């Protein structure tokens, strides 16, 4: 009797507690995302892992003599321990070493270049600062293959690589660059480094700009010389940011696909991502094992970077009178440094665009005389009679191109809306319940897609979608894109929410403002620019994305980037360059329009 009584009380208390728990929007949001993200990230991951033990249609069937779907360790054996014909070495170990070499080199380069420029811009009286900081983020906004394509078109010649034609360097200047300079380790590391340098610049520059100038002044007063201040004060304080930048760039370079495809494959220089792509066609199981290895690296890197940022020596954000910082006078070195920097930036950011424009108007490759130029590839008609490549109209008159542009934009906007909104909600939930296990889980889950290489992510989603009949085409691409870009949005969402003190929302809560109204009328307006960056980043990334969608598109002319890929595979260089330029212009336009209209900018998010 007494026992049922206490049991009842216990039950009603439990009910009450549950009701209280569910009355908080943050809890519902977290629960929702815990379930959704588990389904959308962990489930595909697990299903991919089971694929590594499964026999697939085609060559695997013949090699293992097992039926499709049977359990096998064949893939593991092939990837890790097959010495015949150096198989494992060629497919896995060599690409792994190449990946590590490229990633380390490009990260170091990105940090050195980005960090030095960040220092020059924030801490010295460098000339042309405005120009430098405006143009420096260009390579990051542009698709990563831009520089790779540029490098190849500019330096290629008939002696190396695919030996097809001469680029500008060879045909105009008569200089034939050696193979190591045009293809393989060096250009891949350099191009990736240049692509991610803006990322280092944004992160390190942010810390330097927010760093209390008094910290350095205090050292000056205590008779510390300049170099000792930089080594003992400035660098150690920026160190956590530098390390986490290093790790993020490392992770991004590791999963990069388009750059090594353009600059590595012609000379059989493979990294994990390209090796994986080549295995994907006939040996799915092995490809998935490589994906798993890449994800493992990603997770290890994430854990490392969390350890780095959670130390006792954390950077305190008490800002003092930093506005009064005395900038280092570069003196006589100022103008030379500024000019060199501007030239480098022009080479990296502006010259590629000019090159693409040029390449899209010449009729015969390698001839840059005015008589060899035409605008037909842009606005010509009846081309099939005069030119031996592809479409009959220039790209601006081609309805297929316009449709692809429309689909690309629609996809980018859809992904941005879903990812951006989810990012804000995740940020809200995580920040409100910060420290709780649920919040940590959702936070990690929302970051997880970042660690999956785009190509692998596409492959996993393709595998998952094959089991669901209604999931294909635009819907599938939108889903994959939204999940893949969620990390950008959730990062900026979490950061923005953590900056906001709880009292701001509580003040509205007290007066009985409902939750959705608090979000729309109070929270969103305050952190508008951070939140909008959470929309902008997925949008821009989606617009220029190739590797994620390459496996998911119904036909390759569905979106612009895969169309570009198709054109360059077919060797329609002029059309390809024209479309490439079109993509870059659209991306830049979107970025600057949003930036001008809302003040949101790419600088505020994490990069990928």
């Amino acid at each position, binding site marked *: 009797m007494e026992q049922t009584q206490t049991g009842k009380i216990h039950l009603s208390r439990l009910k009450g507690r549950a009701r209280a728990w569910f009355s908080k929007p943050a809890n519902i949001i977290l629960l929702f995302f815990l379930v959704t993200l588990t389904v959308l990230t962990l489930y595909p991951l697990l299903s991919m892992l089971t694929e590594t033990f499964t026999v697939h249609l085609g060559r695997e069937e013949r090699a293992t003599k097992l039926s499709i779907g049977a359990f096998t360790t064949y893939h593991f054996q092939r990837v890790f321990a097959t010495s015949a014909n150096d198989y494992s070495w060629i497919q896995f170990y060599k690409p792994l070493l190449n990946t590590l070499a490229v990633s380390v080199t490009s990260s170091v380069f990105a940090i050195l270049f980005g960090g030095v420029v960040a220092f020059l811009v924030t801490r010295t009286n460098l000339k042309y600062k405005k120009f430098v900081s405006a143009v420096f983020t260009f390579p990051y906004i542009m698709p990563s293959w831009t520089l790779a394509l540029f490098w190849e078109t500019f330096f290629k010649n008939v002696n190396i690589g695919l030996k097809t034609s001469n680029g500008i360097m060879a045909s105009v200047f008569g200089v034939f660059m050696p193979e190591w300079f045009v293809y393989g380790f060096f250009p891949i590391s350099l191009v990736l480094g240049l692509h991610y340098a803006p990322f280092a610049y944004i992160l390190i520059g942010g810390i330097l700009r927010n760093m*209390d100038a*008094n*910290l350095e*002044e*205090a*050292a*000056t*007063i*205590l*008779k*510390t*010389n300049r170099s*000792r201040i930089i080594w*003992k*004060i400035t660098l*150690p*304080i920026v*160190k956590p940011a530098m390390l986490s930048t290093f790790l993020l760039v490392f992770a991004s370079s590791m999963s990069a696909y388009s750059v090594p495809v353009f600059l590595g494959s012609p000379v059989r220089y493979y990294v994990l991502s390209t090796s994986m792509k080549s295995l994907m066609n006939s040996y799915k199981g092995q490809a998935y094992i490589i994906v798993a290895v890449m994800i493992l690296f990603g997770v290890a890197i994430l854990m490392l970077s969390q350890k780095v940022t959670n130390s*006792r*020596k*954390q*950077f*305190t954000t*008490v*800002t*003092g*009178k930093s506005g*009064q910082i*005395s900038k280092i006078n570069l003196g006589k070195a100022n103008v030379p440094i500024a000019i060199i920097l501007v030239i480098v930036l022009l080479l990296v950011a502006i010259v590629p665009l000019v090159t693409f424009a040029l390449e899209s108007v010449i009729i015969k490759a390698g001839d840059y005389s005015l008589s060899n130029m035409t605008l037909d590839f842009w606005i010509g008609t009846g081309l099939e009679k005069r030119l031996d490549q592809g479409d009959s109209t220039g790209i601006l008159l081609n309805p297929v191109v316009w449709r692809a542009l429309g689909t690309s934009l629609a996809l980018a906007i859809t992904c941005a809306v879903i990812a951006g909104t989810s990012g804000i909600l995740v940020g809200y939930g995580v920040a409100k319940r910060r420290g709780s296990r649920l919040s940590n889980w959702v936070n990690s889950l929302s970051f997880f897609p970042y660690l999956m290489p785009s190509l692998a992510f596409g492959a996993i989603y393709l595998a998952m979608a094959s089991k669901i009949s209604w999931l294909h085409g635009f819907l599938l691409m939108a889903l994959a894109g939204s999940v893949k870009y969620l990390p950008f949005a959730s990062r900026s969402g979490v950061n923005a929410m953590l900056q906001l003190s709880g009292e701001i929302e509580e003040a509205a809560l007290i007066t009985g403002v409902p939750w959705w109204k608090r979000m729309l009328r109070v929270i969103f307006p305050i952190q508008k620019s951070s939140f909008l960056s959470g929309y902008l980043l997925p949008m821009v990334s989606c617009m220029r994305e190739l590797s994620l969608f390459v496996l998911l598109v119904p036909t390759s002319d569905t979106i612009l980037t895969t169309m570009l890929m198709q054109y360059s595979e077919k060797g329609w260089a002029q059309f390809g360059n024209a479309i490439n330029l079109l993509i870059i212009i659209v991306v830049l336009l979107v970025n600057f329009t949003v930036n001008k209209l809302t003040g949101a900018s790419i600088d505020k998010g994490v990069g990928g």
Partner: protein
Amino acid sequence: MPEIILKNVAKRFGKFVAVENLNLNIESNAFITLLGPSGCGKTTTLRMIAGLETPTEGRITIDGKVVFDADEGINLPPNKRDVGFLFQNYALWPHMTVYQNIAFGLENLKWDKNRIRTRVNELLKMLKIEQFEKRYPSELSGGQQQRVAIARTLAPGPKVLFMDEPLSNLDAKLRMEMRTELKRLHRDTDSTFVYVTHDQLEAMTLSTRVCIMETGVLQQYAPPLEMYNNPANLFVADFMGNPTMNFIDGHIKADGSIEFGGIKAKFAPTSGSQPGDMDVVVGIRPEYIHIDEEGAMQGTVYSTLPSGMETTVKLDVNGTTLTAVVFGDVDYDVDSQVSFSFHKAAVIFEKATGKNVAKGKLIV
């Protein structure tokens, strides 16, 4: 020991004038306060003396050595000026322990290890932070961080110490405590202190001389009590003292008869000469308005603020509000009639310029 001399110092940021034509003579061993509302140029002045900011014009001498001269192109960097600087937000290096923070400046002076150890221990003990030696700044409370910052600044034994609102980030109780300790420190270290604050009470209680500034222009440079009793102008009079001085518009005639706020009186100057016929503002400190039965004037009690030690009373006199301070634990009924009288001195400011023209007695 050292004396600091500023001559015609000015600082302009483009068109904006931060400090204008500043002349200041800081004698050795002084405790000088640069006082003023925010944006008045006090921090800029401090930073210019320390060398963290370059003046646009003028000449600065520390201890007989010219550290800055715009005309001769002399500009000694801060590390050559032999000064200490205590920042408002402490500026402790987050990646160094308390010990490392304090020892850093001594390492720059190439002291040997044992000597550094001894000196740091001495400072840790003096500021009562021995137990935090191995902690990082983020693991200390505001007050503890403040002490570490002081220890770091004092470590090399600077003869001139600059402090930029060092107490403004502390809570009220801690601030009181640190004030006492700073004053003691000034005595013990035998150095010249230059202190920036916007808190007039801090300036009054700490310094040997106060330099009060407004929009980049020096208003008055005098010992605090002199400034309190004989403010150079309305701005200074208003800034010094809490509750603030009563200001009543009035008119004075050449024969000394004065009329203000419906009160007719005779003005007898004790310093300065009898002002001529002009519109004036009469300044009366609240504690010089005595409420007693024999008072010749009448007023209505508008509100009272008893604090135990004293009571601030607002009086309504013919539509003018006067603030009086009565010492002791007294209170008055609101809306009751009281009599009051003026004691000690009043200050007469010229209405047009705000300048102090005379100080003297008001005889009703």
